[in-house]
């Protein structure tokens, strides 16, 4: 748990942070967001004592962070910065191993841990382990930045625009990956971003900052539905209900999908049964449930051949993945002009479906 009590930081003439109170519960992900220069990075850096506040106190699990050596404090707090700051003269492995080595872990333990982390961030240790940072893509480097921060398994993570330098699509992937890591590891995280969608997606709580103060600190739903004042309202913007969609995964709202296996002999029988139940269409899969297309049950020639309404689809153009956000699902629907999208896993196996109505319900709730 992190507590900031009446913390103020003055640089020369500028008050970067002004009597700020903030408390982040254990295992919670708190996002700091606000206009440039409002004091987000300064707040973050005061937590691990990179900056020492002019006034006020900061407690970590009840202990004043000014007690003890700053280096020891920092080793117990993972830190990711926007520009990543990987060490250019060290391999990926050595980069990740920095903090464990500072903490004098023995060789085997370091090695094991690095391998484990590379698997966690989905980078093959054999392929990437001996690469140097200049041989990595932006997204890979960011993930290694995160792995490095997690290396010594610190209970707290400070992340300053960790995905800021990645293109929007790559950023979505990194967010997904980070969310699933965070769900597993349950770190106490303070996360700075400029991107409201990212904030809504990741946060347990969002702190909206302005001029070194917190204007509103609440769960994303409340921030979206009842902004504390006009600043927050303007900041959150007009399409608030749409923004809410970033908080949900496809997997969270999908319903069971009606499908038939088109490779069995009984396919016609199934289709007729479904037609009698009043279905308009069903998804078509192969025997392994891999999505192949859809079948229009209301097709004029249905009576003659139930399979006449079958159309193949380009699965990865139409379908969404389990971890795609509802916002992405909606844009896919609008882009393809369809009211139902299938949800598949990475191998293209049908998992469920989402309809436009489902999305409307989420955004109105």
């Amino acid at each position, binding site marked *: 748990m992190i507590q900031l009590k009446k913390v103020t930081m003055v640089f020369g003439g500028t008050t970067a942070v002004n009597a700020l109170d903030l408390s982040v519960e254990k295992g919670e992900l708190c996002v700091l967001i606000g206009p440039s220069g409002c004091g987000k990075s300064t707040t973050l850096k005061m937590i691990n004592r990179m900056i020492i506040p002019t006034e006020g106190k900061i407690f970590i699990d009840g202990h004043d962070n000014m007690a003890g050596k700053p280096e020891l404090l920092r080793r117990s707090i993972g830190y990711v910065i926007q520009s990543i*700051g990987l060490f250019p003269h060290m391999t990926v492995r050595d980069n990740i191993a920095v903090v464990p080595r500072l903490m004098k872990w023995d060789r085997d333990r370091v090695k094991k841990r690095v391998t484990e982390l590379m698997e966690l961030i989905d980078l093959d240790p054999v392929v990437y382990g001996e690469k*140097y940072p200049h041989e990595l893509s932006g997204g890979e480097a960011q993930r290694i930045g995160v792995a490095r921060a997690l290396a010594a398994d610190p209970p707290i993570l400070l992340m300053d625009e960790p995905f800021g330098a990645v293109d929007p699509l790559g950023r979505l992937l990194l967010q997904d990956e980070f969310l699933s890591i965070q769900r597993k590891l349950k770190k106490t995280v303070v996360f700075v971003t400029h991107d409201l969608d990212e904030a809504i997606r990741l946060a347990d709580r969002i702190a909206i900052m302005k001029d070194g103060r917190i204007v509103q600190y609440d769960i994303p739903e409340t921030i979206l539905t009842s902004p504390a004042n006009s600043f927050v309202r303007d900041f959150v913007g007009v399409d608030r209900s749409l923004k809410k969609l970033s908080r949900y995964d496809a997997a969270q709202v999908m319903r069971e999908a009606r499908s038939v296996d088109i490779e069995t002999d009984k396919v016609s029988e199934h289709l007729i049964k479904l037609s009698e139940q009043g279905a308009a269409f069903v998804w078509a899969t192969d025997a392994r449930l891999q999505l192949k297309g859809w079948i229009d049950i209301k097709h004029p020639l249905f009576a003659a051949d139930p399979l006449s309404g079958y159309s193949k689809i380009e699965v990865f153009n139409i379908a969404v993945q389990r971890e795609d956000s509802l916002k992405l699902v909606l844009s896919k629907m609008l882009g393809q002009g369809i009211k139902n999208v299938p949800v598949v896993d990475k191998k293209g196996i049908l998992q469920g479906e989402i309809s436009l109505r489902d999305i409307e319900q989420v955004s109105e709730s």
Partner: protein
Amino acid sequence: MKYFKAWLGIVLFTFLFLYTVFNISLWPGLKAVLYPRVSLPQMLGQHLILVAISSFAAVLAGVPLGIFVTRKSGSGFKGIAGDLGALSQTIPPVAVLALAVPLVGFGFKPTVLALFLYSILPILRNTIAGLEEVSPTVKEAARGMGMTQSEILLKVELPLALPVLFAGIRMSVVVNVGTATIGAVVGAGGLGNPIISGIVWNNQAFILEGAVTTAVLAVLLDQIIGRIEQSVLPGNRLLS
């Protein structure tokens, strides 16, 4: 094999040189083609010692000084250090010799002093440049990871500054090998001996003996330092 051509050049050059110098028939009118008072290996040895001691001292002084003035506590001295370094290189080594001889006597000591002063600037300057080139975000990351100041210096700053630092040492040593020939003027021996005698006695073979050996020595040392650099640097050649 990267250096194959360089080595081939050196071997060829040495061969031609030896052939020219030892073959008295090529030098009509000269009674001797090799400097008679001291043997070539002996002069080479003297020369190497002059260079080694002065360069070593220059590294020992220049690198720590460069580190010191790039620390927070020493940043106030950066200007002065730079000026002193520049000054020590603008005073001609011959002038240093002239000033030093009355103080420390003839021979080895004033020569080493003059060479030391003359060598220090490139080392100091490159140490500072190399350390200042390390990106602030990398240093911030190091601090944020929980490295102490000395860990940041040893594990991050120095390894990253190494290519630039080594370039300074190489340059300094190469120049030093040439400059060390002035040692002969005050009786420190070395490869300057045949050159000066050659000028005095109008014997081109002596001059050639000293000059070419000096040049070959410079190239060789440059290569050797390059090798050392390769072996201490990790596989980050792209950085330099």
